[in-house]
C-alpha cells in the first residue's frame, strides 16, 4: 500500500514525453500487426505482443529509475560575469536500486550526464554556467532527464529548488604588480638577501640586486613583498575607464590581494571597504551589486 502511494507520488512529480523512438515503436507495432493479421501468423503475434508489452513496461521502469532521485544545489564556488563557473548539484538516490543514464538539463540543453547512480548513493555533479552580467542570478528551469530503459519515453523531473547565486564583475584589467611597477619605485628593506634568484640574462637589468653583486654573485630580486603592501588603497572615482571597467579592475585586484595575502581598502562612492573589516567575499558582493 505504501509502495503504491510512493509510486503515485513519483508518477505525479515525473513527466513523460514521447521521443522519435516512440513513433518507431508505433510504426513497428502497426507493421507487425498487419503482418500478423494478414497471415494469421502466431510468431508475428508473439513478436508483436512482446514489443507492445516491453514498450508498455518501459513506463513504470523508467519512472522508478528517475523518480527516487533527489536533487539539491550545494554552495558552489565563485562566479564571475562572462566566465564559466560550476554549479554543484547534489543527487541522492533514495531507493535501493541503481538509477541509470541520467542527464541534468537546463534550458532544454544537456549540461551534465551521469551514467549510473547506485542505490542509496549520493553524488555531486558540476553544471557549467556562465553568468552574462554581474549581480544576482538565479539558475532555474533545471530538470533531470532520463531515457532509460528503451529511449522510447523521455522522463523528466523538475528540481524543486533553484540556485541563487551572485556573479562578481569580470576580473579584467592591469595586474596589481604591473600597475605598481608602473607607478612606484621601491626599495629593499631589512630582509635584504631573501628571495634572490640567479640572474640568467633574461631578467630586466633594473631587477638586478646589486648588493649581492658586491658579494660576488649575480642575482635578481623583485621587491614585491617589501613594497609597502600595508596600505593599498584603491579609490573608485580616481580610476580610469567606464564604471564597469573600474569594477572589473577592482575585482581583479581584490582577487590578487587575496592570493598574496595583502590587505587593502577600496573607497567606493558611498562606502569604504577594507579587507581587515570585511571578508573578501563581502567586498566582492558589494562590487557585484554596485
Amino acid at each position, binding site marked *: 500500500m505504501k509502495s503504491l502511494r510512493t509510486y503515485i507520488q513519483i508518477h505525479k512529480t515525473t513527466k513523460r514525453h514521447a521521443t522519435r523512438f516512440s513513433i518507431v515503436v508505433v510504426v513497428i507495432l502497426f507493421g507487425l500487426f498487419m503482418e500478423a493479421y494478414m497471415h494469421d501468423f502466431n510468431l508475428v503475434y508473439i513478436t508483436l505482443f512482446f514489443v507492445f508489452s516491453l514498450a508498455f513496461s518501459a513506463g513504470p521502469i523508467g519512472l522508478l529509475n528517475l523518480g527516487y532521485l533527489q536533487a539539491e544545489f550545494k*554552495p*558552489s*564556488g*565563485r562566479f564571475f560575469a562572462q566566465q564559466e563557473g*560550476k554549479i*554543484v548539484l547534489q543527487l541522492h538516490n533514495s531507493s535501493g536500486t541503481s538509477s541509470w543514464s541520467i542527464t541534468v538539463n537546463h534550458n532544454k540543453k544537456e549540461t551534465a550526464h551521469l551514467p549510473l547512480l*547506485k542505490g*542509496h*548513493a*549520493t*553524488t*555531486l555533479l*558540476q553544471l557549467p554556467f556562465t553568468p552574462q552580467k554581474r549581480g544576482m542570478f538565479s539558475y532555474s528551469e533545471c530538470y533531470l532527464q532520463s531515457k532509460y530503459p528503451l529511449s522510447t519515453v523521455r522522463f523528466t523531473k523538475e528540481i524543486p529548488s533553484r540556485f541563487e547565486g551572485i556573479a562578481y564583475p569580470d576580473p579584467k584589467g592591469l595586474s596589481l604588480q604591473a600597475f605598481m611597477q608602473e607607478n612606484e619605485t621601491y626599495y629593499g628593506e631589512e*630582509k635584504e*638577501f*631573501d*628571495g634572490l634568484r640567479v640572474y640568467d640574462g633574461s631578467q630586466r637589468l633594473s631587477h638586478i640586486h646589486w648588493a649581492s653583486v658586491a658579494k660576488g654573485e649575480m642575482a635578481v630580486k623583485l621587491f614585491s613583498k617589501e613594497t609597502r603592501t600595508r596600505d593599498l588603497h584603491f579609490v573608485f572615482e580616481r580610476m580610469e575607464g567606464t564604471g564597469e571597467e573600474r569594477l572589473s579592475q577592482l575585482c581583479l585586484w581584490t582577487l590578487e590581494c587575496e592570493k598574496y*595575502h595583502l590587505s587593502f581598502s577600496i573607497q567606493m562612492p558611498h562606502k569604504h571597504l577594507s579587507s581587515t573589516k570585511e571578508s573578501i567575499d563581502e567586498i566582492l558582493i558589494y562590487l557585484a551589486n554596485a
Partner: protein
Amino acid sequence: MQIMNYTISPEFTPLIDAVEAHLIGKRETIALSLATFFAGGHLLLEDIPGVGKTTLAKHLCSVLGLEFGRIQFTSDMLPSDILGINYYNQKEGDFVFKKGPIFTSFLLADEINRSMPKTQSALLQAMEEGTVTIDTTHYPLPQPFFVIGTQNPHEEVGTFELPSSQLDRFMCSLSIGYPDNAAEREILKGKTAHSLSHSSVVLTPSQLQVYLTQASSVTLSDALLDFLQDIITFTRNSGMFEYGLSTRGALALTAMIKSWAMLQGRSYATADDAQMVTAAVCAHRLRFKEGATNAARIHHEIFTHIHSDT
C-alpha cells in the same frame, strides 16, 4: 568530531601511555603520529604555539629510542645551515664535509614556513630522497629517518607558505588542538609528568625494524582497495577541491592504513582504518574551493558522499 572506534594492540599501548603522560588527552594524535612513523612517512604538525607540538615530538622520539635533532627555522636560514657545508681545512689542505643538523634519525623541524623556499626545499628534498647531496657527493641519512615539521597556520607576516608540491612530501598532517575539559583540569592540577623525566619504555632498534617491516606487509583486500579508489576518485572528480589526491598522496594513504592496522594488532586493514587516517593524510593535500579546509570537514564530505558497502 567523528566518533572513532579503534583499539590499540597491547604491544603498543605502553608506548602511547608513556607519551600521553606528558600530553594528556591526546591519545589519538599520539597514535596517529606513531602510525606515521611506522608507515615510513613524515609528519606535519599544524597548530598554534603552546599546545604541545614540541612535547609530542620529544617524547615520541624518546620512546622510539632515536637520536633527537632539532632545527628552528628562521627567515635568514640557508640550505647549508641544515645540510652542512664543505669547508677548507687548512691543516689537511683539503675540503672537509661538516654534517648539518639534518644528520639525525628524528628531526624536529620547527616552524618550517618561516624559512625561505630555497631552504625549505633543501629539507624536503632530503626527506624525500633520504640522502643529502653536496657538491655531487651523496651523504646518506641515518635509517630510520623521521621528520616532524611544524608550522603555525595562522601567522601570515614574514612566512613563506609551503607550496602544495612540497606539502605532499609529508605523509600526514595533524593538529593537536586544545585539550578537552577533563584533560585540561588534570594538566592544571599538575598531573603531567616532568618534562625532563625520560620514560622507561623504549623500543630497541631491532624491534623498530620488525615493526617497520610488519607495517608494510599488512594485507589490503580487494574490497578495501575498491573503497580506497572510491575515496581517491571522489577527491578528484567531485569538484569540491581545487586539486584531487595525487598518486603520492594515494600511496601515503595506503601506507598509513597499513601502519594503523598494525597498531591495532591486525594483519589486515579494514575500512575503519581507512576512515581513521584519511583526514590526516588529506588535510594538507586537499583544499576546498570554498570555505575553510579542516580535517573534520574533509572527513565529513568524503565519507558522506562515497558509497561503498564496507
